[in-house]
């Protein structure tokens, strides 16, 4: 009985990993583009703190309360602004 269970476990975990791996492959560069666009959106909204032309404050004020969750991403992305090289290498999946 022991080996039968173990085999079933291995087969199930293999199925899980292969489907996860497939998903990660299918979605990785789209996720990267999603994060870049999100960063641009946040920069557009709150750019006036760093000198970018920003929309009339009536718009910023109304969206600010809804934007708090995505602020976390905004901070971590701007902390890493200096070295976009890593992101580019992931997005383009260079195989050398």
């Amino acid at each position, binding site marked *: 009985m022991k080996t039968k269970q173990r085999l079933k476990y291995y087969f199930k975990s293999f199925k899980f990993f292969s489907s996860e791996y497939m998903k990660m492959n299918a979605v990785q560069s789209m996720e990267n583009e999603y994060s870049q666009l999100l960063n641009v959106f946040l920069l557009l909204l709150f750019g006036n703190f760093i000198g970018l032309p920003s929309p009339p404050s009536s718009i910023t004020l109304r969206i600010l309360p809804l934007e708090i969750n995505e602020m*976390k*991403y905004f901070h971590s992305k701007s902390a890493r602004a200096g070295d976009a090289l890593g992101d580019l290498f992931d997005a383009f999946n260079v195989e050398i």
Partner: protein
Amino acid sequence: MISVWIFLVIGAVWYLTFYFTYGKFLQNKVVGAEEKRLTPAHKNFDGIDYVPANKYILYGHHVGAIAGTGPIIGPTLAMAWGWLPALLWILIANAILGAVHDYLALMASVRYEGKTIATVTGNVISNRAKYIFLWFILFSLILIIAAFIIFDVSIFMLRPQVATAILIFMPIAIFVGVLIYKFNFALKYALIVGLLLILVAIWVGYNVPLVITDYNTWVTILLIYGWLAGWLPLWYLLQPRDFLNVYIMWGGIILGAIALIISFASFQIPALTSYTQPLVGYKPSPIWPVIVLVIACGALSGFHSLVASGTSARQLNSELDALTVGYAGMFTEGMVALVVAFSVASTLPQSFQMLASKTTFPAGIPHTPYTFVIANALGAFTQGYGIVVHNAFGIDIIYGAIFAGLWFATFDFAVLDTANRLARYAWMEILDPIKEKFPNAHKILYNRYVASIIPLAIGGSLAYTSTITYVWPAFSGANQLLAALALITTSSWIYYVLKKPLKISLLAFIPAFFLWLTVTTALFWYLFVVSYPMFTTGLAKHILTTTYSGLLLTVIVIFLIILDILLIIEFANIAIRRRHENKAKA
């Protein structure tokens, strides 16, 4: 007649022993990775970039990102020296240099909150070192564009069936992409549909080859593709193509390994033909140091440090996973290199008879299997792969060869347009320092279209005028320098930042300096024996193409050597400054 599969087993055992002995030592003593220390994926979790991923999935993704076409060219070319030098280099250099380089780059980046190796270099050594890093990347990308255009054209000219297959493959990738993203097809079925269509493409290619005899038209076609693909939205062309590519690669490797074992293939070439074989630029090239210019990605590649310090560092679940992802990841690429090397070694004379008539040997070079493998490296590999698969499963040799060709060409196309995009970015990044001094020059050079044309123009011009034996070693040189810089950074990170005792840090320093020494001598050798003489003979015989490529390669190699020396000077004065600080503190 020693059979090949024993060495595959030896290779696997070798890597496993190294994994559990040297790898564990690196992990516990040198880097001191602990389970309880939080990785960036947990510390600055943001749900998009920083997301902890499962160890095996990250390993699969890391290997998918590093192994591609690299471990095919190097080992095939190295067969000119016989199978022993390549085998030894792939086993030893991988274990001591390659895997260590990937693992340390991964761990250093994990300790620097997922920042890339370029920023780590900036912190650990100096900001100028960061720009050296970018220059190496730019040169590697330009040379890889040239090298891969030449490879593609040589396959399409030699085996026109692959050309049709790849041209049908592109719309298939788009179709699969539409299935997945627009009609929300389940991934499993989209993959099956994709792979079936690829088999159809191979069958169509087999029956209806696409023949273009003129070399330069092919190069122009590929340059146009590189430029065109550089502008398309990422998710729409790149993602589905990579989605299929990875499965072609895994399929190719596993099929090749099984075929080698089942067909009891045995070495058809001697262990060592001669110490100096006419390999790089058809000049007698000694194994040490030139092997580093030939086998680049099979044993060690600077680009892996960038891949390792990207998603892999940001999605690492725990520090202990790093050994599997970084260290074992490189070993997998080593196994791929072994499979490629053995499939060529066990079939070289046979493929020589078949393809000798179709290969153009330069004047004054004897027609032997060992010069055939240099003049027509990809022919040797695809034919060899076809024969091995034929012996094992009885599939027609041409089909096997087309599959190997398609496997190579799909990755080539992927690298072609990604290299173009990255070169554009690296080019713009490098221009930063001149922003204040020459603002208007900077404005012109910084323009998006200009930035994307320059790398393609230089790389393309090399592709028009030069051949594999000149361009590939130049690329490997730049690539290995990148690795040397990354290794020096990570070893000084261990010694100066982690403050490990000298005895342990030497374990990282010695391979770094050995690599640096080998690469520098190899580049000097390349400069005086290959590229400069090529320039002078071209001048003497008034052949424009050889003079141009000789000149361009000489200039690039000189630039690389200058940067290389700058790198060591940079490291030297950092070391001296740090010793004064320690003395002052003590």
